Structure formats: C-alpha cells, structure tokens
C-alpha cells in the first residue's frame, strides 16, 4: 500500500500523538540529570522536584510581601489585559473590516492605509504608546489591540470581498438597503470567519502582552517571567510557560466550541467547499 493511504489505528494514533511529548520530557529529564550531577544547584534545567517546589511556592502559597498568591494574581492581571486587548481588536476588526469590505468609498480611503499600518512593528513604537497612554493598563491593552486589529481588519475585509457577488444582488432585488445587507447577509456569514481569525491571533496577542508586561508592570505572567529571568529561575519560568501554553490552548478550544455551537452550518459549509 502507498504510504499516503496508510493510516494508524485509533489506539496507535493516540500513542503516536503522545510520543513527541514523552520524547521532549525524557530529553529534558536526561539533560537535567546530566547537568545536576555536575552541579546540584544548576538553575538552567532544574529537576522535577525543584519545579514542583516552585509550583507550590507560586501557585499555592501566599507571598508575604504582597499578600497574594503570585500565580493567580499574575493570571488574573494578564487575562484581564489579554481579553480587553483581544476584545477591542475583534470589535475594530469586525466593524472596520466589514465596512471596508462592503463600502467602496471607505475601501478607497482606508484600504491602503490599513495595509501599511499592519506592517508597522508595534513593539518598535512602544515608547510613544507609553508617553501617550502612560505606563498603566491602557498602554498594555493598546499594544495588544494595535498589534492585532489591523490584521483582523484586513482579513475580514478580504473575506467580505470574497463573498459571492450574487448574494448582494439577490438581497438588493429583494429590497435590502446597505444596512440590512450588512446585518442580514454579511454579518451572519462573517462572524464564524471572525472567530477563525481571532483564533489565529491568540498567539500574537500573548506575545504582545508578555512584551508589554516585561517593560513595566507590578503583576502579570510576562512580568513574572522577565523578573525571575534576571535570576535564571527556570524552575519558575518553565511552569509559567506551560501554564501560558495551557491557557492559550483552552482559549483555542473555547473558540472552536463557540463556533460549532453558534454556527453549526459553518463546519458543514467549509467541508463542502
């Protein structure tokens, strides 16, 4: 049988899926053991026990200096910023994206501008953000929104323009105004695609969040990682990285479920294409 036609049995597929994770873990344990045998206090690749201690310290012990439990405090601060930034970017993406997609005048006015703005590396203009919005929450949320919104706008505008032109003509024949056209034809078809776009932007959103927190902060997952990096405390950094990955993964799953529940027709339409 050709290789392209051979697929693993169900159980075997699960083993295969687990294999890379196990391999990474084993690789880590071996490398860590080698380094620790040389220097028992090695900080780069701490043992699982050391990491366990750090997790207990960060996730289950109240920090005497601040009176809070660091991990939960950091998580709440970071998620608040992330959701605010993503929310604003999504709103801008939907409104502006649809408007540029359906209105030729607006497209002529803003199309090129948004394309150019989306090329500006947001991290490079951070000092301007700080001076205009201060060092507090606003500039961090703004960084996420500025980093993501232009891409969402472009993506949504392109998707609107991809929609079959007959749909617009049919709706207009039935008497739809521009506004009803957007509300009844464009919006329902664009929302599930917006969820797809946002899903793809979760990774960049975390990147911008962590960068902003590294620069000035009192709490947050990125703040903690950059703070303890000064002391090479990988025993704290590694669980934090795993936690961030897990949170991002949960957000991804939540968006997929939302898309499936709210737009059951969409998955079918996609496979039919």
């Amino acid at each position, binding site marked *: 049988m050709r290789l392209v036609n051979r697929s693993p049995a169900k159980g075997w597929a699960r083993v295969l899926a687990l294999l890379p994770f196990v391999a990474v873990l084993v690789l880590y344990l071996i490398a860590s053991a080698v380094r620790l045998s040389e220097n028992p206090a090695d900080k780069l690749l701490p043992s699982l026990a050391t990491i366990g201690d750090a997790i207990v310290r960060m996730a289950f012990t109240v920090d005497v200096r601040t009176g809070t439990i660091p991990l939960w405090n950091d998580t709440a601060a970071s998620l608040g910023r992330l959701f605010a930034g993503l929310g604003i970017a999504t709103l801008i993406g939907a409104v502006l994206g649809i408007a540029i997609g359906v209105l030729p005048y607006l497209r002529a006015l803003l199309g090129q501008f948004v394309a150019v703005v989306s090329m500006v590396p947001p991290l490079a203009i951070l000092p301007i953000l700080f001076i205009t919005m201060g*060092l507090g929450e606003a500039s961090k949320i703004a960084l996420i929104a500025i980093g993501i919104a232009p891409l969402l706008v472009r993506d949504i505008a392109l998707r609107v323009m991809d929609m079959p032109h007959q749909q617009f003509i049919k709706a207009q024949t039935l008497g739809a105004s521009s506004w009803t056209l957007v509300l009844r034809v464009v919006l329902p078809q664009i929302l599930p695609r917006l969820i797809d776009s946002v899903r793809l932007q979760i990774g960049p959103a975390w990147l911008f969040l962590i960068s902003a927190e590294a620069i000035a902060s009192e709490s947050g997952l990125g703040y903690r990682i950059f703070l303890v990096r000064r002391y090479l405390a990988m025993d704290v950094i590694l669980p934090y990285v795993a936690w961030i990955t897990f949170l991002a993964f949960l957000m991804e799953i939540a968006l997929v479920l939302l898309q499936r529940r709210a737009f059951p027709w969409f998955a079918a339409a996609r496979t039919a294409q």
Partner: protein
Amino acid sequence: MSGKYHIKNILKAGALALGVLAASVPLMAHDAFAAPKKDFKLAWTIYVGWMPWGWAKDAGIVKKWADKYGINIDVVQVNDYAESINQYTVGGFDALTVTNMDALSTPAVGGVDTSAVIIGDFSNGNDAVILKDKDKLADIKGQKVNLVEFSVSHYLLARALASINLSEKDVKVVSTSDADMAAAWKTPDVTSVVTWNPIVSEILADPKAHKVFDSSQIPGEIMDLTVVNTQTLKDNPAFAKALAGIWYETLAIMTSDTPEGKAAREAMGKASGTDLAGFESQMAATKLFAKPAEAAAFARSPEVGATMDKVRHFLFDHGLLGNGAPSVDVVGIELADGKVLGDKANVKFRFNDAYMSDAAAGKL
C-alpha cells in the same frame, strides 16, 4: 492489527528516540572535567566601570597579556546585562563583569562557585533615587517607584528607605525595564524612579527631577567586579593573572592625564553612547580603584564583609537566595581574609585579593 505489530513499532520508535537523545546529551554537558585549558571567554556589558575591557581589547592590551601567559582570551560584549550573567552561570563564559549583589544572587545561588578577582570600582553616585517636583527623600512615602526590580536599584531604594526609617511597605515598587526608564520618566504617572547612569544624568536634565538619594551615601556597597569561575581559576591561575595584568595596564592609561589617556576616555565614552565630558562625569560618580594596591586593600577591608552581610539579607528578604532558602546562611561567602559568612560547607562566592596584590607587587 495484532498486538505484536504495535509493540514492535513502539520499540523501534523508542530506540530511535533514545538514539537521538544519546546523541544530544554531550551538548548538554559542559566541561564536566575542568582541566588546564588555553581558550577563555570573558563577557562584559556597557557600564562606565567596565568600559576598560572593550577598550583594552581594541588597544591590543588583551592580546599582549594573553600572549605573555600563552593563552587566548576572548573578550565579548553582551548587549543584555541579565543575559550575560545567565550565560556565565550556565557555563558559556569563564569570566564576567558583574556587581557584588548579582554575583551572589545568580551564579553563587545557582551553585557556580565564583571568585571576584578584580574589584574595579564602587558606585559613588552613579545610582540614584530621583523624585519629580519633590526634593526630600521623605516625600517618597506612598509613591509608586519605578525601578528594575531585584536589581542594585532595588537595593539602593531599600537602603534609602532604611536611612529615614521607612520600609518597602511604605512605597509601591513598579518593575520597569532600564531600556524604557527615560521614556517612562516623561509620562505623568511616573513620579519617582531609581536607576543608574547614564539614565540618571538623562533624567536629571529635566528641571522637575530632583536627586534625593544616591550611592555616594552608601559608599562601597555597590561594587563592580570582574569574577572568574572558581574551578577554572584553580586549574588556570594564569588566566586571572592575565586579567589583572590587562586591567591595571588599561586603568593606568585611562586615568592618566595624558593625550593617550584622554583618547582612551573619549573612545570609551563613544562606545558607551556618550562623549568625553559625559564619560568623565560618570567616572566622577564612580570610585575607580586605579591602583591595584588600593583595590587589594579595599578587598581586605572589613567593609566588604559588612556590605555582603547587608546584601545577603536583602536578597534573603526578597526570596532571592534560592528556592525556599531556610536561612540567610544557605550560601557561604568567603572574604579575602578567609573568614566565611554563612555556610562554610557551601561556599560559592569568594573575594580573592591574590591577583590584585600580585599586580600591586609587580609580580604579574
């Protein structure tokens, strides 16, 4: 499919994975068996007290002394200070420019036995507490203070607050990257910062900025060192001798009142992003030990022990002496006279005046 088929494949995959692992293990270990070697690497970062390393390399002084001892010394400028410490700690460098506090908190706590072979200078005004529109240190009470958390700035703040019977509970520390400190100062919600030069002079150019405390009020406590991995030092004393030789030859030129000295200062100023005048004003806020005898005498003085005791308590209070360190004594610090602060069985940070003394006696 049969069970056998599965197992065979799993075993095959396992064997392959182990092969990959075995091949990659040597990459993880470094110098498991230290021994005399020929090639050494020193990492340095931009700071007034460490600029001589970069200049000494360009002026050929590094090569001259390395050749004298028959070794190679690679002097590498690292852009990020914290990263240079991490790289030294994981074994990427044999020597490093670092402050006394950071040498204790990262390599020493990380189990890398580290010896300070050169005390280059101590900060004598280069680190400062600055308030906006206020000119008394006591006004800091209740303010948000922007600084690089857990750095020497944080230590300076703790010492400043202690000097007026306040504690860290009386302020709110906001961790801020040194790269963005000058921009942060310009925002209205930033009212007090603790930072170091050249950022201090940049901020003080603002008429609203008032310096209310600086490191000259805690002289000798923030030391800028050149440290060497103790094991490397034991196996290769020639490396430390060459470092001391390079350092004091460079400093003699740099501090001399000759055209050559001026040219050196100008070059160092340029390399650190300022000019001759800017560099000389930073030098004025630095107590540079130009003469090895002076540095060796300072290393042997009881002040070093008293400072290290304050520093280790500061680190312990901030949870920086290692995971759940049971007491401030967990890491031993050996002073130049052989006295040990903390655990004698776990000495990881040593002040070694031998090479400064050799330089003073002309024995290099």
